[in-house]
């Protein structure tokens, strides 16, 4: 047997086989390449689909991060004594003296009540009044309360302002806790302001226990299309307007100890708030 000839024969056969396989692979590459539709076209399509369900889009489309991961959180177990000590700038031993039962604490000018671990309300008696410089004609505004909160609030650095609602007589300023750089729509801090005076503060505080590996998320336009699917499935066709779209975290399911925050697109509408899971596109309706 002439091994040289056999080798040459195999060489030519494998040359032909590889040429065929490479051609096949290149063909596969070209056949699965995706036409990237411009965002403006995608948005126009989403708007027309939503219009079929009587939903109008009256909000800007925010830029989307490409990846986000689930967050596992637990209730903040600091307790009323620790929270009051932080807010008053005193030692825990001092705050302990103000304690009036397992869920109540009476500090000078402020009554604390624990609603659940990591969730509490503070009622200010008398209400907090911000002192402005003498002869200043400037009204106390949200920015001033934000400064007060940074100075006297509990864990206030980790909250960002969502909105303020109400009028001059009664106003509430809402903040979201931020975790992993994004707002948590279901962990809130709310300031109740009446006639320019702070009467109450309600706060929920979470502790991050685990951040899962980031994964690709859907963009805001895809989230709008998911919302349209949800409206179709549930047969909802009442007139509605989307007023605001934001990316962040939310949990509609909690347990007494730990739970999971999902990356969500929060859509504020005139009829309620929709949360679109940014990983799966599934939709939930929330109160916040």
């Amino acid at each position, binding site marked *: 047997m002439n091994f040289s000839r056999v080798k040459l024969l195999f060489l030519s056969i*494998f040359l032909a086989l590889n040429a065929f396989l490479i051609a096949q692979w290149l063909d596969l590459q070209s056949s699965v*390449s995706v036409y990237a539709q411009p965002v403006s076209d995608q948005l126009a399509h989403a708007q027309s689909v939503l219009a079929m369900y009587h939903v109008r889009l009256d909000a800007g489309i925010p830029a989307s991060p490409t990846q986000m991961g689930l967050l596992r959180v637990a209730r903040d177990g600091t307790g009323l004594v620790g929270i009051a000590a932080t807010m008053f700038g005193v030692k825990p031993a001092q705050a302990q003296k103000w304690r009036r039962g397992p869920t109540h604490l009476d500090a000078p000018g402020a009554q604390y009540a624990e609603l659940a671990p990591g969730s509490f309300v503070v009622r200010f008696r008398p209400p907090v009044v911000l002192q402005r410089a003498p002869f200043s004609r400037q009204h106390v505004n949200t920015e001033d309360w934000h400064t007060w909160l940074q100075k006297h609030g509990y864990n206030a650095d980790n909250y960002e302002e969502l909105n303020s609602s109400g009028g001059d007589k009664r106003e509430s300023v809402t903040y979201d806790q931020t975790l992993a750089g994004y707002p948590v729509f279901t962990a809130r801090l709310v300031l109740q302001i009446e006639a320019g005076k702070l009467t109450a503060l309600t706060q929920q505080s979470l502790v991050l226990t685990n951040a899962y590996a980031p994964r690709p998320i859907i963009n805001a336009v895809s989230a709008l299309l998911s919302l349209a699917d949800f409206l179709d499935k549930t047969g909802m066709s009442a007139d509605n307007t989307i007023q605001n779209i934001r990316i962040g975290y939310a949990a509609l399911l909690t347990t007494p100890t*730990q739970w999971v925050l999902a990356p969500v697109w929060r859509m504020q509408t005139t009829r309620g708030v929709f949360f679109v899971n940014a*990983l*799966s596109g599934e939709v939930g309706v929330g109160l916040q």
Partner: protein
Amino acid sequence: MIKSWLIWWRRSRELTVSLALTLLVLLSLVTSALIWTGTPGQIAVDRPSFFSRATIGSHRSVTAVSIPSSMLLWTANNELYRFSGDSQTVIGVLSALARARAVSGKVHAARSVSPLSGAYLQLNLNDFHTLATPVGMWLQGPQWAGWPPISGPLFLSPTATQGQYTVRYQTTRGTWQGVIAKAGSGVAAAFTPNAQSTPYATVPFGTTPLDLPYDQIEMPILDWTLAHPVTSHLVDAFFSDPTTAVGIADGPDSTLYTDGIRGVRVLGGPFGEVAEFLSPSARLRGVKPNTIQNLAAAVAAVNQNGGFVGQNFAALQTQTSAGQEFQFDEIVSGWPLFGSVGQMNVWVQEGNVVRLRRNLDYLQELLDEQRVRVLSGSQLLSLLGSRTRGIVSIRLGFGAQMIAEDTVELDPIYRLQYRSGRVQYLSAQTGASFVETGMSGP
């Protein structure tokens, strides 16, 4: 130079060819692998493809579960018979009603809901139909437009004209009646007792007469094997991307699988595991509930999360500000199965299913059947004696008790409902209290 190259070539030719051949073989393997696995690196795959089908039972239509729990026939000879809601006779009546034409201008208020004399059919359309907006699921054709919402049993009695029937039923605005025509042979045939009917009697009982067996009728005691489906398949199928779900132990015998927005809670039940499929949702402002649409959503939710096993019928359990709760009970051998075996409850808000709770255990195979005689209605009432105070309804059906691992025995039982809402189960053979696992619910 050339000479030296030729010398080198002659010496190393074999080696070069061998190396080239080896490289080509390796290249062919790599390219084959690339084609086999697709085209990595070119498409950003959002999430891994993951398909899981929960195949406990089969899909059902809304009309298939919108059957009455039973139908009563009062004959011209003043005899009463009961038909099971899933019997061919009842299905024939429902199909005939769906095709019937309402005689125009004949719908008006009536004084009495039940016919005062003569033969009639009484369709016990469950509580579900009491709050339905159209006249029941089977009566949704254009011919039924203008008929007020039904609120109680529906009575059918023949008129003097051949093929025409008077329809009477209770509404929230009083009793209404109308005349239908072209009901077909399904209704006419139901006026004759047959093998599917059981002799019944209306027993006077306070202000509400009770319909109970006339005599000691025969019923079976059934031994069934219980199937326990694989929970993980159901959990995976619930999420569009199950890899985003995280399991959290939230109780001694309970685990919540959640992606933050939706979740499945798996917990221990009386016979096996219970799964709660959760899509918590707040109510939207200004959106009115639609019972038929909500029932359709409830049926679709069951279809998607395991499907129906056996013959089920739907009942609207509660209607609160939090939404409507539908309960799906099973009919076994013509009688309702009380207790938690195979029971499913669905809570719906504006067409959005927020919670589906299903006992995953279900009746799989009939092992044994034994015929027994059960107490007649009058025997039961005399046995109860003074304990009948406060009773608003008595129904005959089956109750389950565990007799071996993965085997249940279905015994004939009477279900007593009291005005206070309390429910009591009694053995239909002896009248003794039937207190078994999973028999505490409605």
